[in-house]
């Protein structure tokens, strides 16, 4: 059920974040429901694929399925459905890798240099964020047994380790949602982009599916970040919105990093995650 809500609301959040950023930049910006219109428009268009493509026609469906599984396994407003409750943090990380793997293969299939470059960068930075994501989420569930998704959340107050884990996760979210210090969603300027570059050769319904998958993933990551913040259940949607606003502010008021400075940012994120887990295991939580 919550998965359906995520799928339906994901484009809306994307539109709202785009609107907010446009306003911060002094532009009126497109309407908040523009992403829905874009998806419908793309869906009606013809699908084009590069000559000799064998797997690219199936990859969008797979990527969308991965994003939907991510949405279904999130413990939003209670535990996920009985079927998806067996998904844990490790399985989630490996599942997201599967989607990325398929998209990379589809990109390498096109013979285009731009897509190859984007694929290479996407896989590189994904490999560098994976340990951070895993360790940060593990720090959140550390005292318990196992790493089930529904062990996340339910914190009642800010703790030092929770704050560090959240900081790490925030940087991971910036990377995974292709936001500005790391990537740029809006540009098709091929030398700077990572995630958009993978989608260059997709069109029509395929592109619609990939866009929807990216929007679902964005909302899921924000929801994952909000799980690390304390508060009653009604605070949870507010935290998601606040995270979206925060990311938009970061994106507006910071410059894009040079490609080879990104690893330093990701290393910082890993240090946050590592210090979080160190505090969780060896330190006393602050009163």
């Amino acid at each position, binding site marked *: 059920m919550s998965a359906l809500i995520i799928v339906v609301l994901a484009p809306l959040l994307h539109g709202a974040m785009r609107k907010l950023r446009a306003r911060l930049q002094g532009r009126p910006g497109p309407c908040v429901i523009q992403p829905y219109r874009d998806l419908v428009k793309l869906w009606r268009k013809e*699908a084009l694929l590069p000559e000799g493509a064998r797997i690219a026609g199936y990859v969008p469906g797979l990527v969308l399925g991965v994003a939907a599984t991510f949405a279904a396994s999130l413990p939003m407003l209670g535990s996920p459905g009985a079927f998806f409750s067996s998904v844990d943090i490790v399985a989630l990380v490996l*599942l997201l890798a599967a989607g990325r793997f398929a998209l990379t293969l589809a990109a390498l299939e096109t*013979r285009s240099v731009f897509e*190859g470059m984007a694929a290479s960068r996407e*896989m590189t930075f994904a490999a560098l964020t994976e340990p951070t994501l*895993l360790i940060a989420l593990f720090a959140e569930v550390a005292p318990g047994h196992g790493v089930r998704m529904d062990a996340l959340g339910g914190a009642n107050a800010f703790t030092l380790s929770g704050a560090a884990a959240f900081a790490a996760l925030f940087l991971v979210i910036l990377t995974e949602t292709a936001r500005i210090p790391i990537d740029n969603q809006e540009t098709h300027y091929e030398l700077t982009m990572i995630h958009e570059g993978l989608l260059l050769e997709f069109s029509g319904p395929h592109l619609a599916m990939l866009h929807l998958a990216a929007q679902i993933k964005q909302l899921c990551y924000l929801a994952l970040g909000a799980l690390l913040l304390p508060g009653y259940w009604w605070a949870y949607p507010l935290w998601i919105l606040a995270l979206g606003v925060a990311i938009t502010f970061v994106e507006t008021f910071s410059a894009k990093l040079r490609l080879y400075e990104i690893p330093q940012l990701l290393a910082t994120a890993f240090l946050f995650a590592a210090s979080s887990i160190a505090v969780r295991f060896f330190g006393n939580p602050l009163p």
Partner: protein
Amino acid sequence: MRIAGVGCTWIVAFSALISSMQPSVLPMVRIESVVPFLTLTFGASLLAAPFLVLLGLLAFGVGLWSLYRGNASDAMFIAAFCFAMLATLLAQDVAAFFLSWEATALLSAVLVGRRCGDPRVRRATLLYLLMGQAGALCILTAFAMLATASGGASFSAIAAAAPTLPGGVRNAAFVLALIGFGSKAGLVPLHVWLPRAHPVAPANASALLSGVMLKVALYGLLLVVFNLAGPGSSLWGIALLGAGAISVLLGVLYAVVDRDMKRVFAYSSIENVGIIVMAIGVAQIARANANAPLEAAALFAAFFHTIAHGLFKGLLFLGAGTVHEIEHTTDMERLGGLAERLRWSAPSFLIGCAAVSALPPLSGFVSEWATFQTLIAAAQARTDASTTVVAIAALAVLALASGLAAACFAKAFGIAFLGGPRSVNTSDTVPFVERFDASNAALALLASACVVLGFAPKLAWDPLAVVVSHVAGTSFAFPTLARLPTVLAILPILGVIAASIANRACGVRYVPTWTCGSQVTSSNQYTATAFSKPLRTIFAFIFHPVREEKIIQGTSAWFPRQISYQTKSRYIVDEGARGLLAMLFRFARGTRIVQSGSLRLYLLYIVAAAAAATAAAR
């Protein structure tokens, strides 16, 4: 010749499978000899059963592949090699184990050195033999120490006496076994022979080398750690965990930047052996702390990854062999677009690549997931601070490695099999289209094993539970694992089905790739070296990339006639090993002074030795 060899390989495979079925029923075979110490005992044990299953399955697949491809003259050696490994796994005393071990080493060296016309092959074989024999010496010393201390040479006698042995003997035996078996299994820094020897061997031999022989070495390690050297301390486990983590990290880093397909697979084997050793380390820590459920879980992860890795790595090496026979190279910069030509092998190869990247719902996912869970449980058990720290560090290393492995194998499949052909040679030959034959049936068989083990880990679950509960005393509990792969895969599979229906219904138009108006040529595709360039730059402190650029100037500085560009990585561990070797040689040359050749000096030595012996005896 070929048929006979494959037949013998299959006989070995079936006997391996049969001996793994009912280890307790089979009788022990004793071969008496005139020399009193040389009584050879063979018999199946529960600990060896997972390894026997792996040997049986992979030897069957390799035999099937060899029916159609590979050199006919190799087939008999392959069968003999399989038989030697079977004997090693079945050995029940020190002499039998060591003789079979040496037979395995020599036969595999013969296979590695098949194409000995190439000086590179000769050097690789020599290095392999040297390191293998040095390792065997360590193993022999360890076994001899244990056997003399416990007063019996059969494994059951040593295992029975093990708990009463002095700690020093057991610790020394552990260290020697770690060095000896670790050098055979390819643990960093004793791995230097592996990325040289595995790629030069024929494909079916390297499939068995990477798939089974490394695991036989791990079986030896397990045998010593869990049975023969008795209950060890948790320091042993931490040492294993650390050695595994280093192998995982360096193995995958070197794999991701390499451009030769077989060398990529060889480095990836180092990574995967590291994963198994990490799991064994967790099991040892848990055993030392009497945490039987964790020990059982870690052993399950180790055994499952042993079988899973053997199958998919065998599949990948055989696939590389097919590629080599068609294209006469395994250099990824010269390959491309193979999916169109190898239309039967390519899907199996893709499944192998996805399985080694630990992607759900394949076999590699199950074992890597289980390894993650055991590391997490080891950290959560909080036995002591050092264990927790090492477990968390290993967890981070494994997460990084799984991401890098995905990058590495996306590259291996994407560059070699997708896109268009890269070198001029491949595009000029007459269009070759693969037909269904024994070799790609073998690949498909191994690939379906990866899928079945991934979707239904239960299949391996119950047999492994018997083995694990024999070793650990209790069984493992992964309540969610039985349906986890299905849960993860169902929506993506539905998505793929929906996409294919939509493609069928609405139609897809195929158009040339848009590259800003320039022509799409095969030479301006992204290359394997370029794909791993960001990683080479980021991990420059490990790779120390060297870059050479040559520009041949033309009429003007703006229009050079030719630019050649070369980039290389330095291999720190290899350079260290080479330095050590040079030091040894210098030392050996230095000791030559005592060998003057003068008779009087030798007489003086004898007198001095006699005097020293008398003095020592008094």
